[in-house]
């Protein structure tokens, strides 16, 4: 019996030491202890300060791009196979929820070529289902598996691009990950610890940077979109569009440009900013082209000397230049107003284009001063609560109260150590969870002690009373812990960030409690009862 007791005690002391090590390491001074703690206990944004952003990837943009590419390709294919097609267009889903409704309409297909047309679609476009509307018209819808892939890939690609952009800004430890299931939710979570002005970061993240260089038609510029349309008789020529040129240095204007790009952002490499030689005090962004892109650009420029080209970023013309000679490997966007704008643009070009647009669903910025205040408040209330509970336990249960207090303190230490070892994040509701654990943990001790008191009153001997107390209270303790843990489980599934922190601390605290309130408390009682002489009274 004595040996068993020794083993138990060693286990308990070892646990305490491991926990303390987990929290503060092997410090040689107070400041190092603080530093160790800061490193091991991961603080949430609401305690550290920083920004928390939830973005929604507009996956319908990617679906529309896919549809556009499919239509281009289909035009080529039908032309090579001599299948006459009247026209094609697609619908325009506006929100991510409408993505699945993407549809291509094809009309005027030569009825004589129906079997060839159907074979073509079946062979070359396996992601789409072809449904005839009548003898010459069809519609194409994306298959569900293809839609799922599209959404997942779009979100994952967006995460990658945003990751690169945010990392290039040199922020500390940002977190960028999908938020929820990418197929059903298409949301991304961005956490920027210590960042208290997310506007700049949002600007960098949010630019789709659909960059392209297009041919400018030899007309215009006009002063407004309506004027431009009017000049063309209300209908634009095939494959053109009217875009605005907003310039800080020249006048602006609306230009008529080719829709199909000569080169896109994919062909660009190595963007960087520099002073604009043509406009002193202003900045420009230079970029190089890939081999493929350089070839295309060379072909275009040599065939269009004297014509103009435009650099279009996110459907807005950023610069217009006349082609003076064949250019093959580089380009520039000039006249940018500030160094920051030029360097942001270079960054955005370097990291590649976002596959779809971004909308911000949610944003929370907690200033570090609020974090400092929250930690202070959390500590004060924690200490106040702990002291009050300890006092009452000691007064009401006398010496047995010491057992409870030791178990309680160990419980708190175990909880904090578990947070450090698991790398779990401590949030303000998490601190509330620790305080609540103190209140609830003491319940187990109360259950046991009240039972022991009852058994003593019923006339049992002291060791028997202690035994019966622990034994009978055990199942009740299990029941109460299971129910609270179940409700925490739902909280964890439903909640986000800070609320999850609360659920996690409460669950860990309760699990630790089963160990401390039953096992540790019992061991201390056993020590008291294990002496040679018979114990005549139990201070409880």
């Amino acid at each position, binding site marked *: 019996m004595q040996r068993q007791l020794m083993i138990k005690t060693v286990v308990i002391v070892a646990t305490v030491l491991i926990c303390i090590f987990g929290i503060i390491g092997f410090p040689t001074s107070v400041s190092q202890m603080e530093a160790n703690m800061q490193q091991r206990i991961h603080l949430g944004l609401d305690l550290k300060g920083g920004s928390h952003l*939830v973005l929604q990837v507009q996956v319908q943009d990617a679906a529309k791009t896919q549809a556009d590419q499919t239509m281009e390709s289909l035009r080529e294919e039908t032309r090579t196979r001599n299948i006459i097609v009247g026209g094609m267009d697609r619908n325009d889903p506006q929100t991510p929820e409408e993505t699945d409704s993407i549809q291509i309409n094809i009309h005027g297909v030569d009825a004589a070529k129906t079997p060839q047309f159907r074979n073509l679609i079946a062979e070359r476009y396996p992601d789409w289902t072809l449904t005839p509307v009548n003898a010459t018209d069809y519609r194409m819808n994306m298959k569900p598996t293809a839609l799922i892939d599209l959404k997942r890939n779009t979100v994952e690609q967006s995460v990658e691009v945003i990751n690169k952009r945010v990392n290039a800004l040199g922020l500390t430890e940002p977190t960028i990950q999908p938020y929820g299931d990418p197929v059903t939710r298409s949301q991304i979570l961005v956490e920027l610890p*210590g*960042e208290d*002005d997310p*506007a700049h970061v*949002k600007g960098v993240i949010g630019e789709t940077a659909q960059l392209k260089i297009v041919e400018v038609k030899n007309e215009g510029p006009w002063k407004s979109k309506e004027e431009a349309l009017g000049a063309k008789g209300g209908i634009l020529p095939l494959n053109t569009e009217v875009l605005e040129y907003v310039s800080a240095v020249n006048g602006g204007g609306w230009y008529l440009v080719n829709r199909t790009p000569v080169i896109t952002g994919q062909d660009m490499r190595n963007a960087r900013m520099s002073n604009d030689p043509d406009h002193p005090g202003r900045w420009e962004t230079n970029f190089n082209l890939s081999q493929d892109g350089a070839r295309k650009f060379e072909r275009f420029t040599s065939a269009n000397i004297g014509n103009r080209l435009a650099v279009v970023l996110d459907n807005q013309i950023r610069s217009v230049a006349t082609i003076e000679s064949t250019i093959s490997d580089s380009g520039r966007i000039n006249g940018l107003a500030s160094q920051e704008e030029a360097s942001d643009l270079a960054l955005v070009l370097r990291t590649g284009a976002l596959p779809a647009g971004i909308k*911000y*669903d*949610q*944003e*929370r*910025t*907690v*200033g*570090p*001063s*609020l*974090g400092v*205040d929250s930690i*202070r*408040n*959390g500590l004060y*209330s924690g200490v*106040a*609560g702990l002291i*009050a*509970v300890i006092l*009452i*336990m000691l*007064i*009401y249960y006398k010496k047995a109260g010491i057992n409870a207090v030791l178990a309680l303190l160990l419980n708190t230490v175990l909880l904090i150590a578990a947070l450090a070892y698991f790398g779990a994040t401590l949030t*303000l*509701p998490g601190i*509330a969870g620790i*305080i*609540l654990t103190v*209140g*609830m943990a*003491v*319940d187990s001790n*109360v259950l046991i002690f*009240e039972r022991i008191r009852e058994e003593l009153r019923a006339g049992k001997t002291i060791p028997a009373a202690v035994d019966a107390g622990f034994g*009978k209270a055990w*199942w*009740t303790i299990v*029941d*109460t812990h299971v*129910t*609270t*843990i*179940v*409700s*925490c489980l*739902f*909280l964890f*599934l*439903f909640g986000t960030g*800070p*609320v999850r922190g*609360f659920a996690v601390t409460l669950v860990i605290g309760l699990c630790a409690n089963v160990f401390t309130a039953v096992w540790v408390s019992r061991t201390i009682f056993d020590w008291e009862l294990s002496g040679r002489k018979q114990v005549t009274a139990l201070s409880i």
Partner: protein
Amino acid sequence: MELFKQTNFDFLRYKWPFIFASLVLSAAGILSLIVKGGPRLGIEFKGGMLMTATFAPDKPIDQIVGQVRGALDKALPAPPSVQNLNSQNGLNEIEIGTDGSDDATLSRNRQIVVDTLAKLYGQPNSTKLDLNNTGVSALADRLRIPLQTAGVQMSDPQVNQLAAAILAERDRRHGLLTNFDELKSVPGLTPQAMKVLNQECYLAPYTANRDIQIVGPKVGSDLRTQAIEATLLALAGMLVYIWFRFEWIYGVGAVLAVFHDTIITIGIFSILNQEITLTVIAALLTLVGYSMNDTIVIFDRIRENLNLNRREKLVDVINRSVNQTLSRTVMTSGLTFIAVLALFLFGGPVLHGFSLALVIGIIIGTYSSVFVASPIVLMWHDWADKRRKPEPVAPAVSATPRVGGPKAATGKGSVKVSR
């Protein structure tokens, strides 16, 4: 020290007054909800933009609220809500809230609010940087060249460190500096550097960087549905667990008791005009677990006593069980209540709703375990018993014998007296 040695209160005798009290409380809460058109929702459920602006303690806060509201009414497309936060940490804090139908509008509103505050209380035309509303990288960038020009030799990382130290000192003072002298103790801030700081920066009398939240409307409504689902699922989970460990009617009794607690807590929140935020929902879910605990402890005792005394009437068993667990119930509730009270008093404004929900909930939860859950079990069993045996088993016979009547003459010869 023992408060409840061997109590013998007949709790269930007074069940009707207490059930009546419960109904009145619930009705009051529900009435308040109906009159006010539902609970007051926090921003995560409603959508919108919420910003906290902190002012120095000597400013007249009501005047400020009026000024800000007036200016924003003109600048924003829809009237904002501006209120004094009354956070007890000794600061003057106001909360500015706007609505918006999408994130672009909300971001724009945020910028409008920031600009309006600067116009009202800051120095928008000054070329200097507002030290109370800036971040580390902006401050470092601002100070780098002037420090060099002033002859202060500092490498780039050193400048960053200095900026971080200055702002850390500001953050220790709730993010608001009122005087440059407060920065005297910052390491690395030599008198020369201090001069540069004075010439490059000024101190606005407020800071709007402490807490900004923007929530799109769609997120809000999604979250509302999720909150209700989570609560209902948690209750269902409990019901199943208790059904498994006891009888189904115990599960029903416990779930009804917890449901009653939740409704009353939300009702009281409505009466007190408190917001239901995400953390409040977390508190309510915790309450569900906690109230179950209480109820289960009593049920456990009832089950144990039923096994020991198979002949005793249910009402007596329940009464005895409640009395036996009374000591534990009061102690645990008392101690948990004290822990939560500490949170409520010292935990700061962010946790205010959370701790209030728990304070109310623990009181109501303890009360419901005794006066709601157990009576339901009792009433069901009584009703089930009456259905099985249409005539009463053994009528309570009074001490004075009846004159005449066949029943008094026959009978089993034993008199059952019920308490």
